[in-house]
C-alpha cells in the first residue's frame, strides 16, 4: 500500500524487538469479542491512485460547477476569482502539513502569517484587534453573542431580520441549550433594512444586537444609528459581514461603532467548495481581548532579542481553562486564513477597493437588465453586489427551471426562509467580477423564457 512505509520484513523485525509474537498481541487490551476477524464488511478493498481518481472524477462530473454556466448565487458564499498563486502557496507542504504552532521556534512561518492575517482582518473590519480565525461566519456569530453576554452580563440578544437565516438558526439552536434569550425580528420584503425595528427592540436588558452588513437581502443597514442606540442602552453591536469584498467600497463596521465584527472570509482566497471549509473572521475592541474566543497570535522577542511570534493569552482557551474556557474551539481554519491573507496581500487596499467597485458595477448591470423583464422588479434601495428581485411567482420553481436550462440563477428566498410565505417570490441575485455581459444576457433570456 502506497502510504504505508513498513515492509513485511520491517514488521517482523519490529515485533521481535518489541517481544510480541504477532501484531494481535499488541491489541490484547481489546476484549476478544470486540475484535474484528478481518476487514470491515461491505466496503471495497484498497485501490490504485488511478482507480480512485476515476471514481472521484465521475462523482465530480455529476455536479454543475459554477464556472461552467452563467452563475448568480450568493447568500453568504460568493464566487470570486482566486489568483493562481494563492493555491500554490497553500499547497506548500510547510504550510499544508504543519500542525497548530505550539512549538514557536519551528513554526514562525505559520505564526507570522497569523499575525499578518489578524492585522489584515482588524484593518478591514475597522476593529482594534482580530483573532486567528473561527470555523466560519455562522459559528463566529454565535461566539460573538456569548462573548457579548460575558462582557455585559446580560442575556438578551436581538437578531435583525436581515441576518442570514442559517446564522439565525445556528444561534437559535445553540441558545435553546444555553437558555440565552434570543429575539428574532422578522424578515420582510422591504426596500429598506429593519433598522427602526432593531433600535426599537433594544432594551436595558439587551446584551447585544446582531446586524448583518450588507444584510441577507443585500440591503445596507445604518450601523452608526444602531450603534448609537445600542450604546445608550449599554448593549453591544455585533456586525456580521458575509461578503468581505464589500468593505472595499462601503465603510468598515468598526468605524461605524460596531463593538464586535464577525464574518465569513470565504470570498477571499477560499472558494465555494459546496459550503466548507470556510473561514470565520472575528474582530473586536482591544478592551475585550480577554473575553475573545479562539487562538490569538502575538508579537514578542526570542532569547537573542529577535522579533518573533507566539500563540498567546492561552489561558482563555479550553486546553488550559477547561470548563471555564471562553470557547471550546481548538482546531480552527488556519489554512483558509492563509489563503485569505495571500489573496488580500495580492490585492492590497486599493486593489480591494477596485475589486469591490467592479463587483458593484457588475451587480448594477445584472439588476438593471433583469428588472427590465416584465413582472420582475428590484426590491433594494441600496445594494453592493447582491440584491433581491421580486418575481411574479414562487422563486424556488424558477430557480429549478433555470438550472434545467443550465443557468444557476440565484438563491430563492423560499429555500432560505421556507416558513415565511410572504417571501417566496423573492430571488437573491449576486454578481461578482467573474460575471460577464454574456452571462447576464443568458440569464435574462432564460428567465424571460421561464416566466413566459
Amino acid at each position: 500500500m502506497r502510504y504505508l512505509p513498513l515492509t513485511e520484513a520491517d514488521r517482523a523485525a519490529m515485533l521481535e524487538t518489541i517481544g510480541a509474537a504477532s501484531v494481535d498481541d499488541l491489541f490484547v487490551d481489546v476484549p476478544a469479542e470486540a475484535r474484528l476477524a478481518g476487514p470491515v464488511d461491505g466496503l471495497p478493498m484498497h485501490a490504485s491512485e488511478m482507480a480512485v481518481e476515476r471514481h472521484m472524477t465521475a462523482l465530480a462530473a455529476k455536479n454543475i460547477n459554477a464556472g461552467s454556466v452563467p452563475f448568480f448565487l450568493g447568500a453568504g458564499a460568493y464566487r470570486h476569482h482566486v489568483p493562481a498563486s494563492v493555491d500554490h502557496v497553500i499547497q506548500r507542504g510547510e504550510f499544508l502539513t504543519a500542525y497548530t504552532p505550539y512549538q514557536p521556534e519551528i513554526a514562525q512561518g505559520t505564526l507570522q502569517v497569523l499575525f499578518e492575517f489578524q492585522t489584515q482582518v482588524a484593518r478591514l473590519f475597522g476593529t482594534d484587534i482580530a483573532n486567528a480565525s473561527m470555523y466560519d461566519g455562522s459559528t463566529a456569530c454565535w461566539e460573538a453573542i456569548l462573548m457579548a453576554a460575558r462582557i455585559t452580563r446580560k442575556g438578551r440578544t436581538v437578531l435583525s431580520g436581515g441576518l442570514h437565516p442559517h446564522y439565525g438558526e445556528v444561534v437559535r439552536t445553540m441558545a435553546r441549550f444555553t437558555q440565552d434569550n434570543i429575539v428574532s425580528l422578522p424578515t420582510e420584503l422591504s426596500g429598506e433594512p429593519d433598522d427602526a425595528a432593531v433600535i426599537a427592540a433594544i432594551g436595558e436588558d439587551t446584551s447585544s444586537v446582531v446586524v448583518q452588513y450588507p444584510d441577507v437581502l443585500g440591503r445596507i443597514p445604518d450601523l452608526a444609528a444602531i450603534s448609537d442606540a445600542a450604546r445608550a442602552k449599554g448593549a453591544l453591536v455585533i456586525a456580521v459581514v458575509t461578503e468581505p469584498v464589500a468593505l472595499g467600497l462601503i465603510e468598515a463596521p468598526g468605524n461605524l461603532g460596531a463593538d464586535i465584527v464577525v464574518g465569513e472570509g470565504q470570498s477571499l482566497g477560499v472558494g465555494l467548495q459546496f459550503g466548507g471549509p470556510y473561514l470565520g473572521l472575528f474582530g473586536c475592541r482591544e478592551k475585550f481581548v480577554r473575553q475573545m474566543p479562539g487562538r490569538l497570535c502575538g508579537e514578542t522577542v526570542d532569547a537573542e532579542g529577535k522579533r518573533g511570534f507566539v500563540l498567546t493569552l492561552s489561558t482563555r482557551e479550553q486546553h488550559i481553562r477547561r470548563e471555564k474556557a471562553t470557547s471550546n474551539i481548538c482546531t480552527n481554519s488556519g489554512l483558509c486564513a492563509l489563503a485569505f491573507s495571500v489573496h488580500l496581500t495580492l490585492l492590497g487596499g486599493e486593489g480591494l477597493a477596485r475589486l469591490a467597485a467592479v463587483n458593484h458595477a457588475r451587480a448594477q448591470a445584472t439588476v438593471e437588465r433583469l428588472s427590465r423583464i416584465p413582472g420582475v422588479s428590484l426590491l433594494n434601495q441600496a445594494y453592493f453586489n447582491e440584491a433581491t428581485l421580486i418575481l411574479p411567482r414562487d422563486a424556488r420553481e424558477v430557480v429549478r427551471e433555470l438550472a434545467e436550462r443550465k443557468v444557476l440563477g440565484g438563491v430563492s428566498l423560499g429555500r432560505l426562509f421556507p416558513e415565511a410565505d410572504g417571501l417566496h417570490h423573492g430571488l437573491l441575485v449576486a454578481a461578482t467580477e467573474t460575471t460577464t455581459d454574456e452571462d447576464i444576457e443568458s440569464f435574462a433570456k432564460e428567465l424571460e423564457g421561464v416566466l413566459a
Partner: protein
Amino acid sequence: MTRYFTEDHEWIDVEGDTGTVGITDYAQGQLGDITFVELPEVGASVSKGDSVSVVDSVKAASDVYTPVSGAVSDANAALADQPELVNTDAEKGGWLFRVTLSDPAELGGLMDEAAYKVYVESL
C-alpha cells in the same frame, strides 16, 4: 494588624473590619511569571470560599478564593499594568483586593504565619 493564611495559599491582613487579600510568595513561585490578574468588582458581595479573582501565568489560570465573606471595598488597580507585582512583591504591593468583613468569626478557621510555614513544608 493580623495576618492569616489559607490552605489555598491566600493571605489576608485584617485591620478593623477590613481584610486585604493576596496570594503568598510560595504560591507565586509555583505559578511562575504572572501575566494577568482578573480582579473582583468593587461593591460585589462575596462569600468565604468563592472564586473572586483569577491569576494567570503563561500556561495556567488559578482561581483565588476569598478567605472571608463580605463586600469588596477595593481592588489593586496597579496590577492592570504591572501584573508582575504579584511575583516581585506578592505579600505586600502585589495585594489583590480588600473586603469589608461581614463575619470576623470566619478568621478563626485560618492559619497564622507559623502554621502556614509548617503547612508549606509538608507539601
